[in-house]
């Protein structure tokens, strides 16, 4: 670990001190003078005609300030979708209007029907109960297959069907892929469900709208991963407030995992209502409310086929997926099953021909959007499961089959339109075999068997694509936003540095890791660098944090801005030392003239920039503040190999995760401690998806798993200590830090390892079971064992 606390050092997190002492400032900790509270009356039916909403009695209840219904928002823009997918026939997707408050119809349990603003939350909720709502029930569209059937009830009457789009990728490859299947020596087919999940950051969403009548300025405090995106979407598309009259603040945010990327109706409501009542309006989601209003994740139903030749080389891959969109298109929903999923189908393998078909479907359920990994876990899960199944069908070692088909030369252009710059899949697999002590498995299995337990081992690889870019490419793919990141580096007169970044930290530790980069570049202590984020008023326009993009894209922007600073500072130093600029070197916080003992400290140069008495004013401006916008040339491609070992009780179907190992390649690493923590958390979420978590609707569109009483969150007893390693490092070639991103890897790489392990345990125990759908609850495992 570097002694200077720069790049590569496991610096302790500075933000921890406030979190550990109860001094964090989360959105719910903010209370504004004269604040009112809103309670949303939400639909308890999945689908129906909203015949009337009578607020007369409720409006006269104690403490009620104003009640809003869909009528109040009839002239207001709908909640926008940020990605327009074009289907395989060249047509754009069907895009329904998404009202802030339901108007005419309700389309999912949890949709807002009315909003009561009152002096206290209790009074708002009391009054909401007095609102009389008349809904004529319609049949609920829940099952995707049924939704696509001829004559199905439509979620949106003004659309032609419940099909949002039918996407083919790469459409031109389709015939060649089919031909390869005709010619295959072996074809393995697997039908599976990627279960619907609820992201469940521990901090529920909160929004506070504030309006200053004196200036006409609006402010929204919100639990967001990307305040600038919210400002743009809400200002421009929903409420018609120009950016200069709207400020969005996301202070300390208690986890996001994707679900706090999106712009939600509640944010628009609070901003709108604060102006209408000329008082701050605060909304705090309960957990129960979160289950029916936060965008859900995953929910794919897939058939995947793998073709192999007689030598077990992968020759083609074909997939057919239905992806649930829910009742409306959440902000980035259309991109998840398409560009974040299809482009990853090659995985770590040199399969030459791939065709991915995805049908996105509207149903009367909560909208579905990105959740940690977003599309990439779905791609990895089906690919790594079908490979495992193929190995078992062919009687070959699953690891050997993978190794045989690894991509080994880089850069590598996949048949699904992306180019991997670097990677070393052999190295990560070698490392995994060491971490997981594969050679000792048989002894562990025999020992478990002596106790009547079935032990199984599952292995898989993953490839991820982080930092989606470049903007001009994603624009062609349908993104309605740029995907650059920004940073302003401000050096103060006495040498301290403030970095104002468009990235947003909600657990990732940017306040600690970002300064390590600046400290390294300048040669100053990290505690001389402060990170400012989360407030549109004092950060440059940036796209926020998701998709494991912060250090790769936001960090690169910071590096670019710091390079401009250093270049300018060298000019000042050259002037101060009366030397040529080309001879100036910056090291350990001092500028020196090459080949001489002349030197001037960092602080002297920064002071000169702001007190420019002895300064080249005719050549350069005073001050030391630079901004950079970084638009990456490509994605980054972290990769790795994961192993899971389980022990299964054949009497009950219950199993325990005995070991979980991860060998990741994240390229260069800024803070290893933080990176390990990201992987731990990702694995736990993947373990959660594969053994515990399931978001389930009944046929009426009622949510069956609407609280922690029925939605099983991973707890400390569900997981072991993880064995993670990131010593395999192939730096990214196209960003200045050589970093790749690590936030989602654990959640992407872990579900197939766990399912492969359980199938392995069962097969070794003599059960002819090739697949069980996630989550592998004891009851599902037991049911499968009954044949």
């Amino acid at each position, binding site marked *: 670990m570097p002694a200077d606390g720069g790049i590569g050092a*496991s610096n*302790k*997190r500075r933000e*921890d*001190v*406030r*979190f*550990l*002492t*109860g*001094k*964090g*400032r*989360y959105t*719910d*900790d903010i209370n504004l003078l004269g604040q009112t509270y809103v309670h949303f009356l939400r639909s308890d039916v999945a689908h129906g005609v909203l015949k009337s909403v009578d607020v007369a009695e409720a409006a006269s209840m104690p403490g009620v300030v104003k009640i809003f219904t869909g009528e109040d928002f009839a002239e207001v823009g709908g909640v926008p979708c940020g990605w327009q997918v074009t289907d395989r026939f060249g047509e754009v997707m069907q895009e329904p209007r998404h009202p802030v408050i339901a108007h005419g119809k309700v389309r999912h349990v949890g949709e807002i029907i009315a909003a009561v603003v009152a002096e206290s939350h*209790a009074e708002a909720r009391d009054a909401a109960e007095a609102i009389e709502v008349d809904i004529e029930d319609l049949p609920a569209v829940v099952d995707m297959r049924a939704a696509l059937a001829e004559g199905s009830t439509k979620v949106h009457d003004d659309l032609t069907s419940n099909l949002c789009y039918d996407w083919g990728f790469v459409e031109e490859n389709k015939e060649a892929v089919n031909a390869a299947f005709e010619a295959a020596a072996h074809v393995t087919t697997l039908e599976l469900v990627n279960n619907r999940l609820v992201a*469940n*950051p*521990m*901090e*529920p969403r909160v929004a506070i709208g504030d309006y200053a009548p004196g200036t006409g300025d609006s402010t929204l405090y919100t639990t967001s991963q990307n305040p600038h995106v919210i400002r743009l979407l809400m200002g421009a598309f929903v409420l018609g407030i120009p950016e200069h009259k709207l400020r969005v603040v996301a202070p*300390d*945010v*208690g*986890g996001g*995992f994707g679900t706090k990327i999106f712009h939600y109706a509640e944010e628009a409501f609070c901003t709108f209502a604060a102006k209408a009542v000329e008082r701050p309006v605060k909304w705090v989601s*309960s*957990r*129960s409310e979160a289950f029916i209003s936060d965008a859900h994740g995953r929910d794919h139903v897939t058939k995947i086929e793998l073709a192999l030749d007689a030598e077990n080389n992968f020759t083609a891959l074909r997939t057919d997926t239905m992806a649930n969109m829910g009742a409306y298109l959440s902000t980035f929903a259309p991109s998840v099953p398409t560009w974040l999923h299809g482009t990853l189908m090659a995985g770590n393998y040199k399969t030459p021909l791939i065709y991915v078909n995805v049908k996105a479907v509207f149903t009367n359920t909560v909208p579905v959007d990105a959740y940690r990994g977003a599309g990439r876990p779905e791609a990895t899960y089906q690919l790594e499961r079908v490979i495992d199944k193929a190995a078992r069908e062919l009687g070959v070692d699953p690891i050997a089959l993978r190794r045989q088909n690894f991509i080994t030369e880089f850069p590598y252009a996949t048949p699904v339109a992306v180019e991997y710059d670097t990677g070393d899949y052999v190295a990560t697999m070698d490392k995994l075999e060491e971490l997981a002590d594969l050679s000792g498995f048989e002894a562990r299995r025999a020992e478990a068997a002596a106790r009547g337990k079935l032990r199984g081992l599952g292995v898989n690889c993953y490839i991820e694509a982080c930092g989606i870019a470049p903007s001009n490419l994603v624009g062609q793919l349908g993104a309605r936003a740029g995907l650059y990141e920004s940073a302003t580096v401000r050096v103060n007169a006495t040498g301290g540095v403030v970095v104002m970044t468009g990235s947003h930290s*909600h*657990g*990732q*530790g940017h306040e600690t890791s970002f300064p390590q980069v600046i400290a390294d570049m300048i040669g100053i202590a990290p505690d001389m660098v402060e990170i400012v984020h989360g407030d549109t008023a004092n950060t440059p326009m940036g796209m926020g944090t998701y998709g494991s993009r912060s250090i790769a894209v936001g960090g690169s922007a910071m590096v670019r801005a710091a390079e401009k600073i250093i270049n300018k500072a060298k000019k000042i130093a050259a002037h101060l030392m009366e030397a040529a600029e080309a001879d100036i070197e910056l090291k350990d916080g001092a500028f020196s003239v090459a080949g001489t003992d002349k030197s001037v400290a960092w602080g002297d140069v920064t002071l000169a920039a702001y007190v420019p008495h002895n300064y080249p004013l005719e050549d350069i401006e005073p001050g030391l503040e630079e901004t950079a916008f970084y638009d990456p040339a490509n994605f980054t491609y972290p990769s790795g190999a994961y192993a899971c070992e389980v022990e299964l009780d054949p009497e009950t179907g219950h199993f325990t995760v005995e070991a979980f190992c991860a060998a990741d390649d994240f390229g260069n690493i800024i803070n*290893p*401690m*933080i990176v*390990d*923590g990201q992987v*731990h*958390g*990702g*694995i*736990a*979420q993947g373990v959660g998806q594969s053994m515990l978590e399931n978001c389930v609707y009944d046929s009426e569109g009622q949510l069956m798993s609407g*609280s*922690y*009483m029925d939605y099983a*969150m*991973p*707890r*400390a*007893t569900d*997981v072991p*200590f*993880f*064995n*993670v*390693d990131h010593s395999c490092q192939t730096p990214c070639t196209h960003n200045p830090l050589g970093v790749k991103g690590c936030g989602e890897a*654990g959640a992407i790489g872990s579900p197939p390892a766990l399912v492969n392990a359980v199938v392995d345990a069962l097969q070794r125990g003599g059960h002819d079971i090739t697949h069980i759908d996630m989550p592998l609850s004891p009851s599902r495992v037991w049911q499968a064992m009954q044949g």
Partner: protein
Amino acid sequence: MTELSMTVNGKTVTGKAEGRTLLVTFLREELKLTGTHVGCDTSQCGACQVHVNGQPVKSCTMFAAEAEGADVRTIEGMANADGSLSVIQQAFQDHHGLQCGFCTPGMVMTTAALLKENPKPTEAEVREYLEGNICRCTGYHNIVKSIMAASGQDVSAIAAE
């Protein structure tokens, strides 16, 4: 509204509460002690955990009126007298036992209760004791490690930092 009086973090405090006012609401809104968080409404996540008369309690599942006259301790009262991090808090920072920080107050309060009961818990005992505290960020790895370190046990053999 009735007037309640209790000791919070060593100080006698008074404030107003309705019958339905939960202890967490009283702490957050009446006493402005916002370190105690609310993460669920079914008494499972533990973000709201405080100590009442030395016992760990979910402050979202106790009426403020029930704490009349009680000795309550919250995360704001857990640092050393000089304001420095306590052994438990320091262990969480040293071993990266928190990410977003939202569940953290509950984790620290639970740890304090555990170590009072069981000063040298095994890994299994720590995990068992965390049954009522949900963390979505850390995968519990570094929380368990932090707690074992806070109990004075050597955690250097635990895989990866």
